């Protein structure tokens, strides 16, 4: 077992555990903290896939900002243990759980069925994936995807304004 393989299994198990804890734990703050943990795990997985820059951004954006926001909001609301964590409908709950299981089976099944397709075409150009991909990412982001990038900038501006407006309102649709 080489180091890469060990790394993958180690990270995969940690990440998956973090994800499951997020969903299953009854205290939302633990949920948020384990979500942060999962984010860090995913970031590490990015590193194992040579996507260094994305790993950093993942940490900054998800772990450093998004999840911190969650934690802050939860702490501000001071929610502790929840009495009703999960949905209580017997039929709909069963349907939902079954749906999730079915979906998991379907995805895993489809991945496994098509895995040989990937392994056949797996002769990926090593030049691209070999070293650090930051420069390539920057080049493609500012050339091929420049329009999307600009659009996202506008979106962020709108969201910033909208979030401020929403948070300042005293509730109701006609804030003073």
């Amino acid at each position, binding site marked *: 077992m080489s180091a890469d393989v060990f790394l993958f299994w180690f990270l995969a198990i940690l990440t998956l555990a973090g994800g499951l804890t997020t969903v299953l734990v009854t205290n939302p*703050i633990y949920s948020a*903290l384990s979500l*942060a943990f999962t984010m*860090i795990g995913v*970031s590490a997985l990015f590193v194992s896939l040579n996507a*260094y*820059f994305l*790993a*950093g*951004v*993942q*940490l*900054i954006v998800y*772990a*450093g*900002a998004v999840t*911190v*926001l969650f*934690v*802050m909001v939860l*702490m*501000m609301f*001071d929610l502790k243990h929840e009495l009703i964590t999960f949905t209580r409908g017997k039929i709909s709950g069963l349907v939902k759980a079954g749906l999730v299981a079915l979906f998991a089976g379907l995805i895993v099944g489809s991945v496994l069925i098509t895995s040989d397709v990937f392994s056949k075409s797996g002769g990926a150009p090593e030049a691209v994936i070999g070293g*650090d991909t*930051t420069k390539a990412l920057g080049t493609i982001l500012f050339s091929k995807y420049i329009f999307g990038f600009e659009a996202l900038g506008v979106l962020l501006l709108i969201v910033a304004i909208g979030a401020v407006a929403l948070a300042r309102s005293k509730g109701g649709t006609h804030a003073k």
Partner: protein
Amino acid sequence: MGHDIFEISINAIKLIVVFLLIVQAVPVLVWLERRGSAFIQNRLGPNRIGPFGLLQLAADAVKFFFKEEFVPANAVKLLYYAAPVIALIPATLAFAAIPLGQPVQWNEYLFRLQGYEINVGIVFVLAVSSLAPYSILIAGWGSGNKYALMGALRASAQVISYELALGLSIVGMILIYGTFNLTEMIQAQQAPLSYSLLGFTLPLNFLPAWGIFYQPLGAIIFFAASFAESNRLPFDLAEGEAELVAGFHIEYGGFKMLLFFIGEYGHMIVASALMVLFYFGGYAIPGISLADLNQWTADHTASANAASLLAGLLTFVCFFIKLSIFLWIFIQVRWTLPRFRYDQLMDLGWKTMLPWALFNTVLTATFVYLAHL
């Protein structure tokens, strides 16, 4: 990364050494701060134990170790204990990525005087330090104390706010030097200073091409924001004794308190180190370029290995001298400036520093574009 067992073990040792470095720097800094603040305030400070009161550190350590261990009744035990440990992580991880001296070439091995070399070092340092709010939040909430929670919320809001200005102020540097790599950034600062625009060049050979000369505004914003990032005065609203008693570590004592201390000073060290790195030429000795230095050491030592080792040592010392200057500035500021009000703090962050940082970025981009025309 390591290719044989020797290099791997050296790397492992390096990590431990870096960790110990940051941990051991803290007592020294505490002593420095206490003595320094005393002199600033026209007092004497701790001077009874040992020469210049240096053994006070040991006494403090003993006191920390033997303090009573207690958990508040309302605390969430797991989080309460986890928080101080988590507090250590960001600072030490970030510090490990900072090159402390010129790499040493020992036969076929290249030993970098840093925990690990990462190609996107700047992103890594930012990313890791963005995890800092967690320990604060966990501590604040886990303590089960109103003041602690308020302090934690304040602190984390502050850290998130200033992260933006901090990150944006570095963008100018990245644009100018065209790299995320910290070592490359230091290399790029070796050349003599020259401003070029639209094909015209203004050479200022007597100065090194340090970031401070290209990015004065960015440097100021970065420096100010890093104060806020490390929750130091004048931005230590999280502690704000008058309002919140002691902020998020109100319920902590003894060794756990010490860990928080280490975290905070670690932040300070990282901030100073980044300041040195980005704007003051890193480990390079002022006035002597790295090439000259290597030439000089090669002339004065017998073997190439020894020359490399000597150069590494000299740059290391130089780096630490620069670092100490900035650490002293941190301490000096803490004991001279009063504290902001919270709304002033937020106003400063969002309405002053962020726009200026944005302006700096745009300006830099324009100039870089014009310079390359």
